[in-house]
């Protein structure tokens, strides 16, 4: 797809693509997605595909557009151009008679339910207890019974190692504990896609391990699709099966963790990896 900055339409066309089996529907597909803030172009005609059950880590210098990708998938922001598909269905916009049409809020709302996100700053609701945080959306969004939601919440708290914190207030917990609750809150919605946005960046170094351990466990025991932005390269190596290196809104290199971390081909990837390690 030729654009002004890419007249031959070569950049961003093949990178990010994956081989799909016949009839396979990918979990996430970006088609020529553009995101601009005013005159600042963050994503410039991005294409990439994430297969179901994939764990894809996005790495790259800050400002390279990684977090923007997660925010677009979560519909926290709208793309400026292009299309995003979740499980083959359009997320926010469709093409109709050559025009880009925005989809209704109600439709987005339904799409959104299939996606969960864990934030850098946890964003737990301080006006609710830990348990209330976890059951809030299952009860009031998905319409589950309160009893079921509570049972599940206790299971999840067990899973994240906080079985005795159900009645606690988020603000009385440490950062690491808050993030574990946030992970439980996300899982309580049974998302098909989990977005992890620098989930350890706001944590003290000594508690990073416990949070990553829980995520490793989730990756090992479920088939949820994960899209991860992180600066923890060891975590990316352990959990993901694909790594995409971003710079200036483009994929500059991609491959398995072994390929990217042990044998990077691109100069920018090499420079980035030596800077963060």
């Amino acid at each position: 797809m030729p654009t002004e900055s890419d007249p031959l339409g070569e950049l961003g066309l093949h990178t990010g693509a994956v081989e799909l089996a016949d009839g396979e529907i990918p979990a996430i597909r970006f088609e020529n997605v553009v995101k601009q803030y005013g005159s600042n172009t963050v994503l410039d005609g991005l294409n990439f595909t994430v297969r179901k059950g994939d764990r894809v880590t996005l790495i790259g210098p800050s400002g390279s557009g990684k977090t923007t990708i997660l925010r677009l998938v979560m519909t926290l922001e709208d793309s400026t151009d292009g299309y995003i598909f979740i499980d083959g269905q359009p997320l926010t916009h469709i093409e109709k008679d050559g025009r880009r049409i925005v989809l209704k809020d109600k439709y987005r709302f339904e799409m959104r339910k299939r996606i969960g996100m864990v934030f850098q700053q946890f964003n737990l609701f301080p006006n609710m207890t830990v348990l209330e945080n976890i059951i809030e959306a299952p009860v009031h969004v998905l319409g589950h019974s309160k009893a079921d939601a509570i049972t599940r919440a206790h299971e999840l708290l067990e899973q994240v190692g906080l079985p005795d914190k159900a009645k606690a207030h988020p603000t009385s917990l440490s950062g690491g504990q808050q993030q574990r609750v946030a992970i439980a809150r996300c899982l309580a919605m049974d998302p098909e896609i989990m977005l992890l946005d620098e989930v350890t960046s706001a944590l003290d170094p000594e508690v990073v391990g416990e949070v990553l351990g829980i995520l490793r466990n989730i990756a090992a025991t479920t088939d949820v699709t994960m899209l991860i932005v992180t600066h923890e390269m060891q975590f990316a190596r352990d959990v993901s099966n694909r790594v995409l290196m971003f710079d200036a809104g483009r994929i500059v290199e991609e491959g398995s963790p072994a390929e990217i971390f042990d044998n990077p081909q691109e100069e920018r990837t090499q420079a980035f990896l030596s800077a963060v390690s």
Partner: protein
Amino acid sequence: MSDYFETLGRYLPRILDGLLITVELTIGGALLAVVIAIGLGLLARVENFLLRGFARVVIEFFRGTSLVVQLFFLFFVLPLPPFNVNLSPIVVGLIGLGLNYGAYGAEVVRGSINSVPKGQWEATTALSMSNVQRMVRVIFPQAWALMIPSLNNLLIQLLKGTAVVYTITIVDMTAIFNDMRRDTSVFFSYTIALLVYFVIAYVLSTLMGLLERRATAKLGRGIKLHVIPDAKGVAT
């Protein structure tokens, strides 16, 4: 001086009547103001341009055109043709105070809602909450704790504002002490008046303080509240 206290004793029933009127106007006006403040404050941040514009015009109108003008308009103009609306002075006072301080309160409500951290809004989106759920269950409870100190300031302003209603024939506390001045002395009468107002203000402030503590306790400890500037632009 002992004569003065004797006179005060004679005046006591009337003073209590006046006090009742002042308290009625304060509480009634405040309740009306809170309803108006929340309504207009929420309306002032909807996406719809017309609704938002309507809210802005109403807010700026009642903030910008002096309380006394509003009271006089309601009192003198409404009973005349073509309106022919005869409201009792007390109702005029309640409506005037409610609208005026409600408009100030609307800015407090809007400001508090806007200062709930962005991450909280994003978390509600990530959990697929609807707009109503988001506001009722997550944003407003947090904004509420932020707005109480400013609403407290407005409540004291409202109480002080009630003292002007005797100019539209309401026999409030100030009206009674105006009368008592003639039978005692200026110093005696108005000193007591000021003391009574001060005590009411103090009690109201204390109650609002309790309300604030309850609201912040619900948010747990360690939450740092940004103080929203009150209607006059200052946190106190």
